[in-house]
Structures are given as C-alpha cells and as structure tokens.
C-alpha cells in the first residue's frame, strides 16, 4: 500500500436539500499516489456523490478534501478540475467539436501552444488505441466504444495526476466493455495515474481496483481493502452478500499462475534416451511424455510411440491448452478441468515453466 496519499477525504458528508437521509455520512477515505481505487455499492450508496465531491461537481456539506496535500475546497473549482481527469458514463463528448478538438479540451483551456497540443493529441490517439483518421470527424460518427476511448483520451490530455471515472464503461455493450476494461487496466499500469473509479459492477471493481471501497446506503464505508483480502475475508454480512456467489473463483481470477507452486511433470530433454523417458513416465504414473529442447517446449508424445531409437525421431504434438505465468489461477483451473491431462502446462514465449495441477490451485483457494 503506498504510504503517500494523493486524495484524502476526511469526515466528508453530503446532504441534499429536501432529503431526510444524508447521501454521504462522515466518510473518510485515503487514496495513495498511483493507486486504483474502485468505489462500489448498491444504488443510493453515495458512490457517485463521493466521486463528484472530489472535483466539486457536488460541493460537500461538511468535511475536508485534500488533493496532493492541497485543500480542494480552497481552490477555484474550474482550476481544480483542470488538474483532474474526468470521465462519465454518458461520455459527454462535445458534438460540435471534432475528435481532435475534444481531446484537446483541457490543454486549450490551459492555454498550451498549438504545436504542443497537436503533438499531445497524436500521442493520446496511440495511447487509447484510436485511428488517426477519426481525429477530423465529429463524435456522432463514432461508435459507443470509440467515443468512450475519446472520453478517456480527453481526460488524460493534460496529463493530470488524478483521474475520476463515473461508470465509464456502463453504457457500452458487454463485449466492448470487457475489452475496454482490459485495455484500461493495462493503460493504468503503464501510466500510473491515481484513479477513483465508480461502478455498480462488483466484478469490474474486483478486476480493476488495487483496492475497493464498498459503500452502503447513505455513504457508509463497510470495507476498504484489496479485492483479494475482501474476497477472502468479507468484513460483514453486507459485504459478503454484495460480493455475491463464487467468491473463491473470483479470488482465483485475481491471483496469477506465477504465485502458485508449479511441478515439473513428466518432461525430459529431447536428447534423453527412450529408457530414460519410460522411467520418467513410470515415475509420474502417466502414459505420455513431454519433450523439451533445452528450456524450449517441443510438445508431447504418446508413451506407446517410444521405441529403441532416440527421442529426436518422434514427432511431438502440441499441447492444446497452455497458460502463461501471468494468467489467472481461474483460467488455470478452467484449463485443468477441461483438459485431458488434469494439469495445465505453463509456457512463457515458448519457454517451459512447469505444470499446475488441481491440488496446487486448491491450496491457493484455502490460503
């Protein structure tokens, strides 16, 4: 957990005129520099209100908000907002401005020189994965997914240290959403922004957040921790029921294969003798043999195919399902359950790492 806090909410409350219950009640929350925090909870939990108080789209009724040590409430709102990226669900691109102009919004407000703006726009098009031809088009000509990429590029334009995102992928279809989530996850790892991300989708919160803040109705913070910790130890019944079923599986989805214990399996170098191969198969109690060329994985051969001549003459068959070290244990579990061999083969760029069996995976669940 980063020690230095980028955003600090201290005892923040918000009551809207005309409503009996406050939307947010004495909320204290710290977000570390470069940390990705998801705010999640049922509707009415004040997650969006909380987010919008950080850039003062909504003014808090009481409490203190510090951004990078500065009192957010003491800075003129429009200046504060220029240093905070903001992405909303409805995207809100400016229909009368081209994609390039949309992306350039904050740099223009900050009075950058045109050459610098152009350079930055080009750079952002690369970063968010848009096509350059789109720059001269108007937003209406783009699909929902493309528009949200522009929305993200626009938020990143002036390179703000903080990014606020209000259900940014909520309005696109599930397939595009999944892709945007993955892309944004990678993007965040490269850019190292401090992100506060509101969603009502638990799985999205689990997937994206370094930490997740689970809020209850009235803006009450029920638990604030890493997704793996929360999934393993929900603080109370509310959190547990909010997380939903398959907590173990969801947790496995977050743990990488590299963290589990791999076994070597019935693998021999292709230069070994057939007798050596038979010995290894017997040792593992299997009828197949994995072949390696040094560290490189060649494939597997059927035990019956081993004759008296060298292993080089055999034609190894490829493994149908392989995983890389950064795959999730959930993907590994799927591979093991659906594969014939009851084990998953771990390969990074052709280099054999080892095998993962059901036992090793279940050990991770119980840990």
């Amino acid at each position: 957990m980063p020690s230095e806090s980028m955003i600090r909410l201290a005892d923040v409350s918000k009551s809207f005129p005309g409503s009996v219950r406050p939307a947010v009640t004495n909320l204290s929350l710290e977000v570390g520099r470069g940390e990705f925090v998801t705010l999640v909870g049922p509707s009415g939990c004040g997650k969006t209100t909380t987010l919008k108080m950080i850039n003062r789209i909504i003014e808090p009724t009481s409490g203190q908000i510090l951004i990078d040590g500065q009192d957010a409430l003491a800075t003129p709102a429009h200046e504060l907002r220029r240093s905070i990226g903001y992405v909303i669900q409805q995207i809100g691109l400016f229909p009368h401005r081209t994609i390039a102009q949309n992306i350039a919004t904050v740099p223009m407000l900050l009075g950058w020189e045109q050459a610098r703006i152009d350079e930055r726009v080009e750079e952002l098009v690369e970063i968010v994965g848009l096509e350059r031809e789109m720059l001269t088009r108007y937003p209406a000509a783009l699909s929902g997914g493309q528009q949200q990429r522009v929305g993200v590029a626009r938020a990143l334009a002036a390179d703000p240290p903080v990014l606020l995102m209000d259900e940014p992928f909520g309005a696109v279809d599930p397939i595009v959403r999944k892709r945007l989530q993955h892309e944004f996850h990678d993007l965040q790892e490269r850019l190292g922004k401090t992100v506060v991300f509101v969603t009502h989708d638990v799985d999205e919160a689990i997937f994206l957040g370094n930490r997740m803040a689970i809020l209850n109705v009235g803006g009450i913070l029920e638990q604030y921790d890493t997704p793996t910790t929360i999934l393993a130890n929900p603080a109370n019944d509310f959190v547990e029921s909010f997380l939903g079923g398959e907590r173990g599986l969801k947790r496995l989805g977050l743990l990488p294969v590299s963290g589990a214990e791999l076994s070597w399996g019935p693998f021999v170098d292709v230069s070994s003798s057939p007798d050596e191969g038979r010995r290894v198969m017997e040792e593992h109690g299997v009828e197949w043999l994995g072949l390696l060329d040094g560290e490189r994985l060649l494939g597997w051969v059927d035990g019956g195919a081993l004759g008296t001549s060298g292993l080089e003459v055999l034609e190894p068959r490829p493994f149908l399902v392989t995983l890389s070290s950064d795959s999730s244990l959930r993907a590994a579990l799927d591979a093991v359950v659906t594969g014939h061999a009851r084990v998953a083969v771990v390969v990074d760029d052709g280099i054999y790492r080892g095998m993962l069996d059901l036992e090793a995976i279940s050990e991770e669940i119980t840990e």
Partner: protein
Amino acid sequence: MTWAQQSAPLVDWDWVARNWGQIVDRTWEHLTLTAVSVGLGLVISLALSILALRWRWAYGPITWVTGLMYTIPSLALFAVLVPIVGLNATNAVIALTSYTLLIIIRNLVAGIDGVSESVLEAADGMGYTRRARFWRMEVPLALPVIIAGLRIATVTTVGLVTVTAVLGLGGYGYFILRGLNTFFWTQILVGVVLSVVLATLFDIGFVWLQRFLSPWARRAR
C-alpha cells in the same frame, strides 16, 4: 379604368425598365427594414433569454408579454405608435422588432435547454467557467435551433414589411399598395414576386449560414 388597360399584358416590362431605379431603392428599403428589425430583435431577445435562463421565473412573464405583442395586428400597432414616435421608420422598426421577439426568444431558450446534460457535466468537469461554458458550449450547440428561429422571424418580417407601406415606407409593399389603388397589375406583381423572392433568399441564406456555422449538425441525430 378602361377595358383597354385591363386587357393590357400582365407585366408591362416597359414600366419595369423605366422604374428600375425605384425598384432598387425599394429593395434596399425592404432589406434594411428587415435586417434592422431582425437584428434588433436578436439583440433584445438574447438579453431577455439570458435573463430568462438565469432567473427561470422570468421566462413566463417574458413569453407572456412578447406573446401579447405578437397577437396585436400589425396595422393596429403602427397606428398606436403614430402619436408616440410619428409616421416614420422608427415606428416601423419598433413594430417589426416586437413581432420577432417571441419567435427568437422561444428558440433561443429551447435551444439552450436542449443541450444535453452530459455535455454540460463534461464541460464543468474539464474546468470551464460558467461564462465560458455558455458561450463556447451552450450557444454553439443551440445554434441550429436559434438559426431556425431567426429563419422564421426573418421570413415573417419580410412579409410584414410590406404592410409598412401604410406609413409611406414598405419596400415592395409600396408597389403593392400603389398597384391596388390604380389597378395596375404590373406594380402589384413586382411587389408580390420580389417579396417572395426576397423571403426565399433570406431563407436559403439562413440554411447556408447554419450549415457553415454548425457543420457537425449536418447529419441530424
């Protein structure tokens, strides 16, 4: 009136040629009366609309008063204004301007109100000040609706200018009035046709202006 005059050709081109100078003068008069009235109407409407947008309660009274003005018959309004400002262009402009207000204000307010909430929130979130947001987001985005209002107001005004012939002005209305008094068809036709042509040209001009100013809205969503 004799049969000989009535059976003369519908358009006496000779008359048109002889009175070319006057036709040009009346064209200019018609054009300036229209432009000044609509221009003035736009300025006043803009001020009143900003008022109505800032203080919502003012919108009701503003549309009520301008709506009332809109219902006064033009001839009556000219007459009412005579004792106050006299029988002159000022009289005409005041009356003509007052007819444009309701149309322009309604479209201005509807246009600004029609700007989507998400665009406004995004603009706020990017760090626009309230004033910059109004002029650089709300007004440009409302432009198609505002210009649609100006189109209707202008075409209406081109028609109403002919009525100011009773004040001794009237642009093309002068020809229509004179033609009616003397049963001279050529004069009536020149007045009517040129009014229609002028209204059409204004209309086309506004369509072009709107396309030029809001290229983004060409493919209406």
